[in-house]
């Protein structure tokens, strides 16, 4: 950390605190940021990781990351049926986490979140685990993030795509919506949302394999719904399959500047690919919640 406090508006380099260094100094963080493999390696999601760290720094959180000591939670292995590999990963990670006495974990990946929160306890890993959507919601509610001073999202149309492992898997539907509500944007809901949300197509280890033969890719189906929602094409929305509760379509709107908000690295990949497939990447952007908040707060550099 730089010894002098930079003035407002200045760029400051962040040295991300690593758990091993803290432990060497006999310090312990209030919260461990679990970055996840996508957050660490996927070029697109690295930007989310960086945005979230900016927020953590901005509000003065006492946090740390595992850095090179982090390893895959084992989620994709478990969903694919490789229980052995999953438990090997889980127990290795639990040994690391318990060794540092970690109590509280925040992560920007719903798959890591679900696995650590729900499946590690049976293997000896008991932690308070929160997803970054809940964490951001808390920061906004506590007034630590004002969501002002940066980019304005006023009037821009945003639709939130529910991640299965956040929503149905763990019943978190409102936190990401509350975070988006702070942006004062034009929030519209897809017909298949919340408990009835349609998967992006990447869960259950589908991210790493080709889809089985079918009529369509799942991410295209979902992207078409998102685009029709953002532009208010009632006709396209009327023909969707798997709709449980009929809701009225939002009014017509220019796609330019619209945003699909996600809260999961795999949803990010699938929705971005879908938007590119539909050749709308010049008009519609896919952002994670943390990126939107960091932009609105004006702390990007």
């Amino acid at each position, binding site marked *: 950390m730089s010894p002098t406090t930079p003035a407002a508006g200045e760029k400051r380099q962040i040295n991300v605190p690593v758990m091993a260094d803290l432990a060497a100094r006999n310090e312990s963080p209030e919260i461990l940021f679990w970055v996840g493999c996508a957050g660490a*390696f996927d070029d697109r999601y690295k930007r989310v990781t960086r945005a979230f760290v900016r927020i953590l720094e901005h509000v003065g959180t006492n946090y740390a990351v595992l850095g090179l000591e982090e390893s895959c939670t084992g989620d994709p292995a478990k969903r694919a049926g490789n229980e052995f590999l999953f438990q090997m990963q889980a127990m290795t990670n639990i040994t690391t986490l318990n060794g540092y006495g970690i109590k509280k974990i925040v992560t920007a990946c719903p798959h890591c979140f679900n696995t650590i929160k729900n499946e590690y306890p049976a293997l000896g890993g008991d932690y308070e685990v929160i997803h970054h959507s809940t964490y951001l919601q808390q920061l906004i509610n506590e007034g630590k993030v004002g969501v002002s001073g940066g980019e304005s999202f006023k009037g821009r149309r945003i639709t939130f795509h529910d991640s299965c492992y956040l929503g149905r898997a763990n019943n978190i539907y409102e936190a990401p919506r509350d975070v988006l509500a702070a942006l004062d944007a034009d929030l519209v809901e897809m017909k298949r949302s919340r408990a009835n949300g349609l998967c992006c197509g990447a869960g259950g280890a589908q991210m790493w394999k080709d889809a089985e033969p079918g009529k369509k890719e799942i991410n295209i189906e979902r992207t078409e719904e998102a685009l029709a929602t953002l532009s208010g094409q009632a006709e396209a929305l009327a023909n969707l399959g798997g709709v449980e509760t009929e809701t009225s379509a939002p009014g017509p709107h220019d796609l330019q500047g619209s945003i699909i908000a996600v809260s999961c690295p795999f949803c990010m990949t699938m929705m971005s690919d879908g938007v590119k497939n539909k050749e709308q990447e010049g008009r519609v952007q896919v952002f994670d919640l943390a990126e939107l908040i960091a932009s609105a707060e004006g702390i990007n550099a």
Partner: protein
Amino acid sequence: MLQSILFLLLLVAAFGLFAWQVRKIRANILVGRDRDMSGNVAERFQKTLLVAFGQQKMFKRLTPALLHLIVYVGFLVINVEVLEIVVDGLFGTHRFLKFLGPVYDGLMATNEILAALVLVAVAAFWWRRNSNPPLKRFSGPELRLWPKLDANIILYVEVVLMMALFFMNTADLKLHQMEGQDLPGTFPVSNLLVGLLPTNVATLEVLERTGWWAHIIGIFLFLNYLPSSKHFHIIMAFPGVWYSRLVPQGQFSNVESITNEVKAMMDPSFVVPPAPTAADGSALAPAPFGAKDVEDLPWTNLLAAYSCTECGRCTSVCPANLTGKLLSPRKIIMDTRDRVEEKYNSPLIFQPNVYGAEAKHEPITDLANATLLRGKVTPEELWACTTCNACVESCPVNINPLESIIEMRRFLVLEESAAPNSLNVMFSNIENNGAPWAFSPSDRFNWADELFATEKQPAAVVA
């Protein structure tokens, strides 16, 4: 007297046969793997009250929820009248419950109105299934032949039962009117129908008896049809919901035998608990990882297969199915029930349906050795699942098709090493790099390089 004896014999035969069939089904369910489901009584009670009795999850779709509510409430309330019929039949009484007075009036009136509404609801159900094209979730390769016929038989039987009820009441009412007597009870629908019946006392007596016997014999027959039918859900939905999972939907089951192995690998001092033994102390054959056949699934999954009414809400929200993949969660549940009855006990009528070319299966000739996995559920179906839990969420009786899918994936991966090649690549990436992609583990922290933020006032900088 003769009628009473005949009735008693029928009653005993009907319930005896039903109990015999239920015993077979109970045995089928218990071939599944042990799973301790004790405890959490308060939570299970509440869930059963809300989801099973209260039909909470049905109300995600209003139209079928209301139609179903009519038939469900009709079933519950008209059963009070069935109780009366049983007492009348056994003791030769006539409308035994009439001592209830005004309550009886209300009960009969409610019954009649519900019965009329049931006819309307059943007509709507029939239309939803049989119009051209039917509702999407009532089509699909698994809903041909027997399951399609079964659904319609249920509707036809319900019509016959309600008609018999009206016949009985109308004839009884007209008899009493012609004899200048007051029939106990209020019959708003039958009152409208009396004009349609002949004015001959002898004929009316025959009609009244015919309606009475048709109603109760119909119920006895229907009772014994249930174990062969998807309509068995009217009973099994309750234990099914009682034993539903109480943990978050994202939490997949833990395989304890693997936990022991992994612990032993990581810690040489770990003592692996002894393997379970048979009652006589001999060693049991080790259970396979995951599920190849029905007996490898937890017994709760087999119970669930019997509580399924093939409504197809699961399949209609499945992202894989919506985009034309072979996977249909409903089919996996139906396959499970078919397979357990093919391999173990089959009730009276049911003929497990061997799906034809439409489901892209090879025709199955060797039924005895055609296991659930591969014999009925193909790997192609299993690998199409995104584990999104939409099917689990949508099921009105808390069936969890996802759990069976994962159990079968476990068998494919751990026992047969039969994962798609791309997934094997992912596995070895995790093993070698600690990440599902082929990145070097030493690059894991590169995201933090050259990371800048714009300072804001009031800034809270952590020193």
